[in-house]
């Protein structure tokens, strides 16, 4: 007896191809973003009078005579993201442990919801709160850090002194708040999956609650936590308007390795100068900066997903 292959109904073929092409479209979209940014950046890069990667100047208002380099943008971007991560990583770890190990069962869900609410606040509101409300409160802290630890270049006197508001430090603190829900929610997911047998084994050996966490939850969830933090890093590198609102751009002064400097990240530089988008060549310079940002966030997200994927597969 021969089996007859089922006839594919035309409706099925059409529907399958429709959904398939939506999938292909998303894949093509990422490629298109890269291609369009490269194509638009090239003419501007050709017209650049200085080295794009190492120069520390950004003069693009005269399309016939442009000199722009991303060195300072890169440093400020990395600095703000690191300040944010240094603050957000331990706190997120604490929150994730709290929600999975410490919070009373019935309250764990509402508490998690509260943390998630932080992610629902628009970033411009965080930015305005950061510069108008938080910055004046943080200024004495910054002043004190500068006074006592100023001999270390990281805490040195900034290039917008005596302004302690629009600094990388303020921006980093606000950014840290915005990263909390991101790092927390993914870490929580991984911590929840700690094998019960391991936890009970540790308890049977007489471990205290903290020892249970140290010997079972943390070793098991480490990869997920690191992956979550890298996703947070990706978010921090690309955050735009909150930083554009907070960071004060000094006139002429270069970035000087202090967290009390002002400056601009890739994203905040582009956002602050949207008025220059009237000439395609000037716009091209910003698109080139955007391209670098795209490549960096792509790499960071790629690594983060690889780490998380490995964990989830295991």
């Amino acid at each position: 007896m021969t089996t007859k292959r089922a006839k594919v109904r035309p409706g099925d073929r059409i529907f399958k191809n429709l959904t398939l092409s939506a999938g292909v479209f998303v894949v093509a979209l990422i490629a298109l973003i890269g291609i369009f940014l490269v194509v638009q950046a090239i003419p501007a890069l050709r017209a650049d009078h200085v080295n794009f990667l190492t120069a520390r100047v950004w003069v693009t208002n005269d399309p016939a005579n442009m000199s722009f380099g991303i060195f300072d943008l890169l440093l400020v971007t990395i600095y703000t993201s690191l300040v944010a991560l240094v603050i957000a990583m331990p706190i997120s770890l604490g929150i994730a442990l709290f929600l999975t190990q410490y919070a009373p069962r019935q309250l764990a869900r509402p508490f998690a919801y509260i943390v998630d609410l932080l992610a629902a606040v628009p970033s411009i509101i965080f930015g305005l709160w950061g510069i108008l409300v938080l910055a004046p409160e943080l200024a004495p802290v910054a002043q004190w850090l500068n006074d006592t630890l100023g001999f270390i270049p990281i805490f040195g006197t900034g290039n917008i002194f005596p302004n302690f508001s629009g600094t990388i430090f303020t921006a980093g603190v606000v950014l840290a708040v915005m990263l909390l829900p991101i790092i927390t929610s993914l870490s929580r997911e991984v911590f929840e999956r700690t094998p019960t047998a391991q936890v009970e084994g540790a308890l049977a050996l007489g471990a205290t609650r903290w020892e249970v966490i140290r010997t079972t939850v943390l070793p098991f969830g480490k990869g997920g936590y690191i992956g979550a933090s890298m996703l947070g890093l990706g978010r921090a590198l690309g955050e735009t308007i909150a930083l554009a609102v907070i960071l004060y751009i000094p006139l002429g002064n270069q970035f000087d390795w202090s967290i009390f400097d002002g400056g601009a990240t890739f994203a905040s530089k582009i956002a602050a100068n949207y008025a220059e988008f009237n000439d395609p060549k000037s716009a091209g310079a910003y698109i080139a900066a955007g391209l670098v940002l795209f490549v960096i966030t792509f790499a960071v997200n790629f690594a983060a997903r690889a780490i998380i994927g490995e964990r989830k597969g295991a």
Partner: protein
Amino acid sequence: MATGTLSETDRPAASPAFQQTSLNRKVKNHVATVLVWLSFLLAVVPLVWVLYTVVANGIKRIPYSNWWSQDFGSVLSDEVGGGVLHAIIGTLEQGLMCAIIAVPLGLGVAIYLVEYGRNSTLSKITTFMVDILSGVPSIVAALFIYALWITTLGLPRSGFAVSLALVLLMIPVVVRSAEEMLRIVPDDLREASYALGVPKWKTIMKVVLPTALSGIISGIMMALARVMGETAPLLVLVGYSQYTNWDLFNNGQAALPLLMNNERATNSMEPGSVGFDRIWGAALTLVLIIALINLIATVVSRVVAPKKK
């Protein structure tokens, strides 16, 4: 359940039979507990502080009917009065247009991944690219649309260009939530439908989607609320207009985040000044709209949820 019996295991059953938990270990345990509680409180402080700032400063202008029915076209920048209707219109129009484009695309991708792709190479690549897309900074999405829509196609800046950039940000959120919802639809339902001779596409449309609909709708609404708060695409892709403009395709158009940024850049931010009241009024309006959308999402998903017998 792992931690439920902890307090009993802390204490030995009979003191000579077991060793006492040493002071060192007890102290470490207590320090850890305190730190963990503190870190949660540390997350609550900024949330409450931000919301308090928005409500306390924003409430001043919100109760007046002008705020909801006029624009800033007829008032000076330092003149009390006028309203944010123009920005509400822009935010809603741009958000809706974004949803009209992003929802079918996102649902299509999710249906492909769950119903057709199952572990094929293309579905793995698609899943990966959706992850990457969710990590694309909003300013990069804006630059891409600028390069495509304005430089390459030569079309004007407009609210529609903003919608296109928001589509890039909305698709991954829609795909993720819809995918999750489709995956929890039991296979029994699909198989029962096939057994009755219903074609696969009809099974998806009439059985799978309706079952998952409630979750999908709330996912879409949350995604919509998220993109409505975006500012970066607005800066690059549309000019701010203080007049009411219903036309998504021509001329400048306001939106609440853009209005806030514009007031911040051009107006005094002294507490109590007109500019100060405007940005916080707009912030509260935006928060209220986002809260309202989330509320609607909850109600709608309750209404369309599969009935339990």
